[in-house]
């Protein structure tokens, strides 16, 4: 069965420093991977996706993610964190059934300190 793992419940980083939020996946076949962000009392916002092509994917708000097939990882990165990036981040993989249900990780809370 498809799954994603987010090994860190929380990541703390100082404003201006680079940030990384980790995600590893387990799928059969080629993975379709996504990152979503959830701000307090808000829904999930799509950040970026990897379907095929370039391993470095750029998304919204300056975020990017690197697909690494050998390490089965899809870590989310940003060169310079902002306090406003503080939120809950979810990695997700598309199921390989006929529909496109997303299977989410447990989420990582990013806290950016001024």
């Amino acid at each position, binding site marked *: 069965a498809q799954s994603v793992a987010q090994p860190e419940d929380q990541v703390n980083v100082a404003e201006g420093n680079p940030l990384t939020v980790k995600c590893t996946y387990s799928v059969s076949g080629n993975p379709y991977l996504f990152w979503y962000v959830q701000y307090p009392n808000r829904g*999930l916002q799509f950040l970026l996706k990897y379907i095929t092509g370039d391993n470095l994917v750029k998304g919204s708000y300056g975020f990017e993610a690197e697909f690494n097939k050998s390490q089965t990882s899809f870590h989310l990165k940003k060169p310079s964190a902002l306090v406003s990036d503080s939120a809950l981040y979810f990695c997700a993989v598309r199921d390989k059934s*006929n529909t496109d249900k*997303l299977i989410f*990780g447990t989420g990582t809370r990013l806290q950016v300190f001024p």
Partner: protein
Amino acid sequence: EPEVTQTPSHQVTQMGQEVILRCVPISNHLYFYWYRQILGQKVEFLVSFYNNEISEKSEIFDDQFSVERPDGSNFTLKIRSTKLEDSAMYFCASAKQGLFNYEQYFGPGTRLTVT
């Protein structure tokens, strides 16, 4: 930019009562979904809907749940007889589909509290 909208934002109901959660997907999207997130837990898939029928449902989506697209714009989730454990945030999502348009766009959610 088009958004998925959901009403109400918060619904409080008594155990055993029926609730209907409403969603308006993005207008040119063809695939519709319901997910839920119990407080402090991860987002879980409930059901997907395409071409006026359920495409797939999870084991959570038992006979107490149903979905409908009554008028070509709204997409509803009905829980016939709510239980305490149905308390959660319910998210509606829609997707355009297509070769590279797999991303699902989520609404802001309806917080359901069953007392």
